[in-house]
């Protein structure tokens, strides 16, 4: 923690790759698997989670010295619930179509273990600016996995990408919709929950493969052989 630049670099690396909430900690899988049938839904839920995570991390970090240790979990949950309610009301007001299509999964962000996990593991022990950055990076890592999963499932299931993006981004985004191929009969399994589990498994396998590849090809530090003298000089 001595060098501030190094701390931020480490937090970025942890959030996006090494300790990614979705790929490594496997937290928050319920919304991850349930709503990622399309890129739009995935992006919407990812951004909502990101905002909640940053807000709750900052707040938890600011109040960390005033909260008795015994009741910290209920307090953290209250803080998170407050931010979720704020996000839910904002979404209801500004992106109503997406609000309806995500449904129960917006209030359920409260129960997302990734958020309470960060509050407990990082924000309750570190200063607020580091916690804010940690929340941001964890949130981005989570959102990226959601979008990737949503993209793969949408292509496999519907042959489209960004279908319904206008619900999230406004009317101009309707032109973002890409139709890669046209199918008469969609592969329903990719859109149903089992497809989410299968695709998620392949993404995690892919990440592990990259890690193994990097470990195998990393430059090994030269071994210095030092001789132990057993005889006297």
């Amino acid at each position, binding site marked *: 923690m001595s060098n501030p630049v190094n701390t931020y670099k480490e937090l970025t690396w942890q959030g996006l790759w090494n300790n990614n909430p979705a790929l490594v900690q496997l937290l928050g899988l319920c919304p991850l698997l349930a709503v990622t049938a399309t890129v739009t839904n995935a992006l919407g839920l990812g951004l909502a989670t990101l905002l909640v995570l940053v807000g709750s991390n900052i707040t938890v970090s600011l109040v960390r010295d005033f909260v008795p240790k015994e009741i910290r979990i209920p307090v953290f949950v209250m803080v998170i619930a407050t931010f979720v309610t704020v996000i839910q009301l904002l979404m209801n007001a500004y992106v109503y179509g997406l609000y309806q299509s995500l449904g129960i999964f917006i209030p359920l962000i409260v129960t997302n273990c990734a958020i309470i996990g960060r509050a407990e593991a990082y924000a309750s022990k570190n200063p607020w600016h580091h916690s804010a950055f940690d929340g941001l990076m964890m949130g981005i890592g989570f959102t990226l996995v959601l979008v990737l999963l949503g993209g793969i499932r949408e292509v496999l299931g519907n042959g489209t990408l960004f279908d319904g993006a206008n619900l999230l981004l406004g009317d101009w985004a309707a032109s973002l919709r890409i139709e890669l191929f046209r199918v008469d*009969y969609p*592969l*329903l*399994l990719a859109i*149903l929950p*089992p497809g989410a589990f299968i695709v998620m*498994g392949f993404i995690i396998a892919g990440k592990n493969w990259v890690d193994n590849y990097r470990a195998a090809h990393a430059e090994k530090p030269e071994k210095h052989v030092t001789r132990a003298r057993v005889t006297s000089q």
Partner: protein
Amino acid sequence: MTFKIAASPHAHQRRTTQQVMRWVYVALIPGVLLQTYFFGVGVYIQLALALLTAWVAEGLAMRLRGRPIGHAWQDHTAIVTAVLLAISIPALAPWWIIVIGTAFSIIVVKHVYGGVGQNLFNPAMAGYVLLLVSFPVQMTSWPVPNELAQLQVTISDTAQLIFSGFTNSGYNLEQLRMGVDGVTMATPLDSLRNDLNHQLTLTEALNKPIFGGLAGIGWAWINIAFLLGGLVLIKQKIISWHIPGGMLVGLLVPAAVYWMFNPDQAITPMLHALSGATMLGAFFIATDPVTAATSNKGRWVFGLFIGFLVFVIRTWGGYPDAVAFAVLLANMTVPVIDKYTQPVAYGHGGRS
């Protein structure tokens, strides 16, 4: 010099995986022939497509895993998976159905888990469930048995139908499935399910041309052929009788009890036994040595559980037939079954 000391049993018949698998698909031949007789040469086209896909998928998966390809092609397990899947799907289903199903079975269900002997789920049935969940219309469009069909399809018509969706004279599958009375025909189990759900009595529901003799036309004979093939496998000691026996008892006893209490609102045990995939499932699918329980007692429990699930799903579930779902659900319980049915080794305690 050292003497080689072999553990018992000292007299045993050694069979390679290849030999076991060869027996399995030889025993399937009578059923496949009858299925072709009743549902047309589409069965052969599906088989050819499935085998070709399995061959390519197996090679591809072995290449990706960095293993010798020839070995996988020689053990014949992929052939059995492909054949089981090909005869489980409707004979006139479009070509991409069987290609997607077989590729998924081999690559995802078998090789992702580590190849032969490592898979958690029965590959053919997992592929079947993928197809049934994803393409319910195509997967339930069984053709009418030839003797009831209004339009006879030739071989070239069949090929045209599978690859393009229309016969030479422009009929599609829906039109071909019309019977002599101009009503689209369902499979016996499907039709019974619908009629019983619509508060018809069993006598009324059975009053359709697709029923005749013991069970549905065609289906009864196909099931009997698979039963005979299965008995040959038991005789040859390829499979033990515990799983098929357990499955039939688990299906027929609850079915008989339920039927005795509602004689006109329930499917008879005879229809349960000789319709759908009952015999194919009992003797060829549930007995997969990799995904079934290990000990004899465990196999008995495994079979009973599958049979009971088939009865429950056929009677109250959302799908007309249930063998694939029942087998997959039972596959998940295998570790638990194995844990509680582990035989006690001689001299290592026991109940006394």
